[in-house]
């Protein structure tokens, strides 16, 4: 795999959509995430060239678990996009999984895989340029204008106001002013009223066209597949109240959470992006493109569609740029931009799948095609279920990769052994055990240690690193 493909494949559709969604929503962690996604691959690139993954059942199991979690996240983003565009989730999962299997199992398809990355990146770049041209603003001007908005409200042209939009997964909206929402399709909605000291829970079964009045302070929970219509000019529930609040959310982020995010992404990159011994100008250019592109896309998205994210998926912000095509004086064909976004996401997905296949091929020996196919099919089945947001398997996959692959490697596991095991397998096993233990029982830990449940990599990676560092013995060949 070339460096261009390795670095370009790193974010994949899941990390790219999460990053853009976070910027558009004004999430406190957005700047940290953008910088980590952009710079972390360079941290991996400067590592010494690594040995191929050891052929050991533990190494193979770790590669399978990491690939399954990350493919699940990538496919969930594609399935969310399909749901938002009116298709069925499983259609997108089957199509994308078939494409990934075709591109990764077909012999002599190396050129096609490189083309997939180039095509995906070019399509997304084209959409970004088209949105900038339609808005007649450079990204920094879009950011400045977005930060100057007095309030984040539903515009008259928003699909949430006109035909109504559907929720991708169960979503709870917090209202800061009174709203009258209309059910577009029949559904059950839970309203929690905070009148007085005790919250009052009411479940409303609405038919198509029925309206529901919500008061300030109430929350509304919508089930996946249900559709709602909002009033134009009203504040967007759950969004920052104003442009200034959107712009100033990041400097108020919690430092421990941001540091945990940096560690998760950086170690994930060290595990997934290969190091190289030759010039890295292409990788550097991609780093700059990820940072500038992600921030620009998010700024354009929040200006065009401040309600992007209401549906419960970060991919709504990615797709929202196609609305630029419908702006007055630039009326063109929004479907063309939507198509380009979908091509871009599919291209990134094929590249990411190819990168995830590599460790399974190294550790699995001759049986890797069967194992890889099972991983893709399993991930597609999991992604077809809408209840889990892409961030959950994405964060778990990056953290597991960091704790079980990157940490032992940073401790010098390549070519070393612990007793009769390859050191990478022994360190990976310890990292995986601590990771699973922290995830399952972290909440029972006392005081501040309970926070490790949110970022188990902070305990699992040092454990794996320490075991390898203390117990490893160089093999004769390595010496």
């Amino acid at each position: 795999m070339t460096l261009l493909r390795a670095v370009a494949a790193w974010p994949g559709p899941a990390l790219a959509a999460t990053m853009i969604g976070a910027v558009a929503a004004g999430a406190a962690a957005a700047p940290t995430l953008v910088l980590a996604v952009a710079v972390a691959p360079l941290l991996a690139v400067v590592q010494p060239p690594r040995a191929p993954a050891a052929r050991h059942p533990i190494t193979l199991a770790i590669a399978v678990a990491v690939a399954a979690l990350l493919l699940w996240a990538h496919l969930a983003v594609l399935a969310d996009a399909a749901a938002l565009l009116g298709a069925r989730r499983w259609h997108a999962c089957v199509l994308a999984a078939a494409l990934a299997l075709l591109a990764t199992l077909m012999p002599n398809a190396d050129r096609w895989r490189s083309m997939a990355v180039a095509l995906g990146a070019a399509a997304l770049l084209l959409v970004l340029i088209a949105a900038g041209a339609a808005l007649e603003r450079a990204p920094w001007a879009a950011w400045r204008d977005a930060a100057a908005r007095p309030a984040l409200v539903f515009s008259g042209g928003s699909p949430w106001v006109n035909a109504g939009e559907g929720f991708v997964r169960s979503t709870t909206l917090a209202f800061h002013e009174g709203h009258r929402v209309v059910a577009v399709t029949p559904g059950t909605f839970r309203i929690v009223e905070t009148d007085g000291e005790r919250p009052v829970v009411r479940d409303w079964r609405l038919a198509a066209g029925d309206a529901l009045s919500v008061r300030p302070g109430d929350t509304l929970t919508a089930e996946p597949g249900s559709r709602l219509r909002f009033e134009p000019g009203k504040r967007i529930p759950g969004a920052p109240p104003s442009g200034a609040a959107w712009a100033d959310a990041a400097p108020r982020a919690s430092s421990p959470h941001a540091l945990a995010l940096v560690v998760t992404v950086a170690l994930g990159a060290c595990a997934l992006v290969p190091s190289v011994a030759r010039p890295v100008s292409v990788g550097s250019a991609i780093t700059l493109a990820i940072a500038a592109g992600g921030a620009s896309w998010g700024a354009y998205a929040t200006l065009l569609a401040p309600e992007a994210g209401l549906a419960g998926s970060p991919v709504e912000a990615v797709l929202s740029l196609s609305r630029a095509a419908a702006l007055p004086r630039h009326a063109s064909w929004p479907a063309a931009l939507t198509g380009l976004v979908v091509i871009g996401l599919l291209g990134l997905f094929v590249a990411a799948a190819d990168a995830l296949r590599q460790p399974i091929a190294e550790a699995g020996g001759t049986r890797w095609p069967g194992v890889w196919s099972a991983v893709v099919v399993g991930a597609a089945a999991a992604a077809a279920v809408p209840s889990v947001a892409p961030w959950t398997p994405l964060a778990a996959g990056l953290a597991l990769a960091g704790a079980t692959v990157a940490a032992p490697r940073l401790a010098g596991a390549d070519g070393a052994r612990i007793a009769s095991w390859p050191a990478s397998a022994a360190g990976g096993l310890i990292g995986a055990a601590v990771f699973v233990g922290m995830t399952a029982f972290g909440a029972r830990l006392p005081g501040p240690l309970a926070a490790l449940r949110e970022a188990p990599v902070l305990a699992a990676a040092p454990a794996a690193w320490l075991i390898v560092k203390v117990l490893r013995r160089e093999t004769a060949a390595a010496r």
Partner: protein
Amino acid sequence: MAERGRRIAVVVLVVLLAVPPLATALPGSPASVRVAGITLLWWYVACAGPLAAVIVIALVRAVR
């Protein structure tokens, strides 16, 4: 020399990555100061930080 350069690059990249989380903890919120309408934090994240990382990598490669 190559190993030393690599270690320096790793340390500098880690410091660059740690700037946003640490900047939010500083008193007076210097990260939210606006320059040309955009907060310093976003200038750093979208431009200065990645550019500095790329320059560090280029310097380390050139020294090798």
